[in-house]
């Protein structure tokens, strides 16, 4: 498995190190791209947001795979349960927040007689 082996086992240690380093590189890249997109402003606003969101989601997978060592093998069922539960909660939080804030926003726009 991708679990880092104890240090006495030189080979396993190397393999573990390689895993972490490649994870680190990919994660850094996925961070740099959105920064680039925002800083240079080359892309349209919609495309920029799409790039940020896309990189964020891939980043999520990279962390799980390289740093938390979660994959789909049967031995990892327990972890998978927790991941699915996390996903459910994230969806509740994000969707709920969007629903609430959009709803509030809509009701702010209609201000008859107001000067907003």
């Amino acid at each position, binding site marked *: 498995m991708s679990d880092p082996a104890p240090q006495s086992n030189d080979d396993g240690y190397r393999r573990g190190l390689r895993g972490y380093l490649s994870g680190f590189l990919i994660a850094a890249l996925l961070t740099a791209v959105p920064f680039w997109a925002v800083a240079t402003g080359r892309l349209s606003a919609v495309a920029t947001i799409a790039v940020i969101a896309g990189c964020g989601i891939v980043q999520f997978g990279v962390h799980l795979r390289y740093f938390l060592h979660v994959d789909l093998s049967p031995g990892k069922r327990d972890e998978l349960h927790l991941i699915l539960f996390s996903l*459910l*909660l994230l969806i509740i939080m994000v969707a*709920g*927040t969007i629903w*609430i*804030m959009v*709803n509030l926003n809509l*009701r702010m726009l209609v201000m008859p007689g107001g000067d907003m």
Partner: protein
Amino acid sequence: MTSQELWSLALGRLDVDALDFLKAFYAPSENDDILSGAAWVVILGAVTVVALLTIFRAWRPLFRDWLTSVDHKKIGVMYIVLAMVMLVRGVLEGVVMRAQQADGLTGGFLSANHFGQLFSTHGTIMVLFMAMPFLTGLINIVVPLQIGARDVSFPMLNSVSLGFTTAGAALIMISLVIGEFSTGGWTAYPPYTGRVFQPGVGPDYWLWAVILSGVGSTLTGINFVVTIYKERAPGMGFMQMPMFTWTALCTAIMMIFAMPAVTVSSAMLVLDRYLGFHFFTNDLGGNMMNYANIFWLFGHPEVYILVLPAFGVYSEVASTFSGKRLYGYGSLVAATMVIALLSFTVWLHHFFTMGQSADVNAAFGIATMLIGVPTGVKIYDWMATLFRGRIRFTVPVIYLLAFMMLFVLGGLTGILLANPAVDFQVHNTLFLVAHFHNMLIPGVLFGLFAGYTYWFPKIFGFRLNEVWGRIAAFNWIAGFMLAFFPLYVVGAMGMTRRTMAYAEPAFQIWFHIAGVGAALLTAGLASLCVQLWVSIRNREQTRDIGGDPWDGRTLEWATPSPVPEYNFAVIPRVHSREAFASAKAAGAGYPEPASYADIDLPGPTWTGLVMAIFGTTLGFGLIWYMWWLAALSFAVIAVTLIGRAIRGDRHPRVIPAAEVAAEHRAWLARIRALPAAPRTQERSPANRGMAAPEYRDLRP
């Protein structure tokens, strides 16, 4: 450089005016005297502790045996000591507010600003620095024992969590002596807590205290999820776990998801206040509603983080003290999981009145009412557990019974509030304050007291005094009812919360009754202190030698009291749900292991202590703009953590098998010599921690 500039470089915005404890001398007034007095209590308390430690030459043992220890039981005890100290402050603040409002028709004796600080510190302390450390302490002490583990998965991280929580608590205590606290309530809603309305240090104290303890609790959550997933004794599947462990698991999972929300909302408010961001300001595109949204994404799950472990305690207490198997285990597990999930779907009920459309309100109102269903299931399960049991009226059972009646009442008022139409009438009144104290005091606090009484002998090797325990319980129960039921009335009459004075004479009588309740609550607090004192003095009469003073049913009672550092001489093999009860029923409660093995234990570490000290100075530097102090503290924290991660544990210890065997055999020999106590003698000196076989529920 002028001396002015030098001063501000070194001490930021700190000056003499910030020193509360001097105010009584140069600006005497009733209000400032109280403020100064409180500051002096903190200072004298700290000096007394230092003096006592020095007189009793306790510094070395304190550092060696406690502060640098990674033993989960000792960390648990330290959490509870912290919680008790904060409880004293929290209750006294509550009582001062009660006194102020009893006198509120004529304006009272506090200034508005001081009253604002009181409810803000009281709420913050009670939730984050009393209830959280208390339940974390209980979980720390009990869970590894209940699942038959040697320690938590990450012992060093455990002490780091304690360090961060302590740093947060220390900041709140310091705010009493130096400077002032926020007046923005425990929720700290901007824009009122933004820098336009409160430019001073108050909200910054709140923010850094909350962020530090939030990090601590997140780490605790991670630690316990991993521990419960990975460290269970062989044979213990999820459905063999004791109920308290189940609730601890759900609470730990909720901590992982809820605590980051408050860390994020606080960090955003920090950016607003320190760097001129506009997340939550009135102008320039800020939207303070998102603060309410994120805060309650944490806030509502938080109240279930608090109450679930208390439910776990009540489950253990109900089955142990009625001598029966826990009724409806499966339904209790399911109810716990459902509550944990549903609690993430209701946060909007805390701001029904803040502008959403009726549809949104209706959805969250219905979700809120749904939580009543699994909670009701639990109440029935506990009733069925007690039904036809041979109940012993020990102190934990008294708390349990009070809880079952009072919590249902509080739950009913909660269902009322879950209806947005009703909420529009009573939101922001003392009706709400009565409701949540009705959940928090019988639900959380009584559960914590019950757990404290129940597990005390396991850690210290003697039972707590029954008589003073009952006196305390009576005072807490009666005091609670007198102090908070009147608030339902004045709340429904329209008295708003967080209000120090009123002009309506009809309110006054109710506040006088509540004042009497507050006096009883103070007596309850004092009784707890007396109980501890008397129990320590008379400990020879309540010695728990065998380790099983209550005829317990779960694994923690299969160990000696006090529990040895390594918990179990040999990790037990679990065959059934209430492992110890069924072993005892089969006459095999205390098996002699076939062989012993060496035990590896993690070594002591200074890391947690470094986090506590430099976490405090980090917060203090940030609050007072002493940037050098903040940078220095942050560097120390970072270097310590990273250094420790690279170095690993340099002082691991091995306890040789021979030593374990000798200790364990000595204990077994002592047990065999003990007279077994029947349950009728549970509270007499005849109970030495060896339970006589009782009538047992023999149905499968």
